[in-house]
């Protein structure tokens, strides 16, 4: 009844049913791309595979933290991959924001909101197309920024990517979740 992307379907199966076949699909889809992505930062093939292995194990272990109302599978995995790379490079481990309260997470899990999930996926697709349309020079800067190769002062504020619409969509989802939780309690 839904038309989620394959990646979201696999990830939900891993999250909700600890489905190993679905995890295998995620591995086949993401591992080669992840390795390519990590190698772009100048990491050797062997070290990149170690990172990819850790990232995929984290995907399996922390699957309950994946929230399709707020993130597409690729953006969730991107964040895990960058974490892993920072922890390899740096003395201090990376500081992450506080997790949303478990109340909010439980509510999100029990009330799967298909329209919100679909909207997040659509936004991600729009974003990918916008990235593909950037002029080569501009695109290279955006790629460098998200590969962690530009400092904040080197990143130009206007990336040319439609981040504002995505932000509004995700924010709406968060507000809706908090609102529903309030109603449930009163």
């Amino acid at each position, binding site marked *: 009844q839904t038309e989620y992307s394959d990646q979201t379907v696999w990830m939900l199966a891993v999250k909700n049913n600890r489905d190993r076949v679905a995890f295998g699909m995620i591995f086949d889809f993401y591992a080669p791309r992840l390795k390519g992505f990590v190698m772009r930062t100048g990491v050797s093939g062997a070290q990149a595979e170690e990172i990819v292995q850790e990232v995929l194990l984290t995907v399996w272990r922390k699957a309950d933290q994946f929230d399709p109302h707020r993130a597409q599978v690729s953006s969730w995995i991107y964040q895990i991959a960058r974490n892993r790379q920072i922890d390899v490079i740096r003395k201090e481990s990376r500081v992450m924001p506080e*997790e949303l309260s478990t109340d909010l997470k439980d509510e999100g899990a029990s009330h799967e909101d298909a329209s919100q999930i679909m909207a997040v996926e659509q936004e991600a697709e729009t974003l990918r197309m916008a990235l593909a349309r950037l002029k080569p020079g501009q695109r290279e800067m955006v790629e460098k920024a*998200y590969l962690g190769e530009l400092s904040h*002062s080197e990143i130009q504020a206007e990336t040319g990517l439609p981040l504002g619409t995505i*932000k509004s969509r995700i*924010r709406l989802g968060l507000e809706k979740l908090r609102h529903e939780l309030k109603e449930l309690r009163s």
Partner: protein
Amino acid sequence: MSTIKHHISDPLMAAYAAGNLPYHYELVVAAQISMSDEARARLAAHEMAGGAVMMDSAEADLSAGMKNNVMAMLDEPAPKDVSYQKSGVFPGPVMEALKGKPPKWKSLGFGVRQSILHADKEGSVRLLYIPGGEAVPEHSHEGLELTLVLQGSFSDETGRFGVGDIEIADDDLEHTPHADPGEPCICLAATGAPLRFKKFMPRLFQPIFKI
């Protein structure tokens, strides 16, 4: 949550999403995201852009047996990681930096107190406690200064900052923030280099206070 007026800039948020901010700035950004749905949604947007870049990377061949290795490791016990929750006015990331304990305050005079959370040659991050109406000593910055309000509010030449607001000050800003009258203002402040306070205290004393 709707009252936050001063947000993290997009370049800072993009650098945070990429994990490319030094620890002291990263802590302030992570703390603000913990306090604001708006910031959380903006981070998610940047992570989506990062995900798009990742997806467009050329695929690399995997060595034989890698998948079997990973599949065989799924049942191994996962390393436990501790996560810190908000306590009082301190959001999770600050509690993590405090290792779950209350801050150890050191007096700077005139009721102003600080607690240094981390300092090295790249920069420092500290909690500041300023009684209502008191000023933060006049100072200049080497590098960027990020100040996040955790309690109360402060004002300076550039505006007023309340709970959850973040002030982004460049090298060239010379300002005299003061806590607004009322409850004490508690801030989390990070700078790229040791703060140089000007009048408040002779420079001689600076090594003692690590400022």
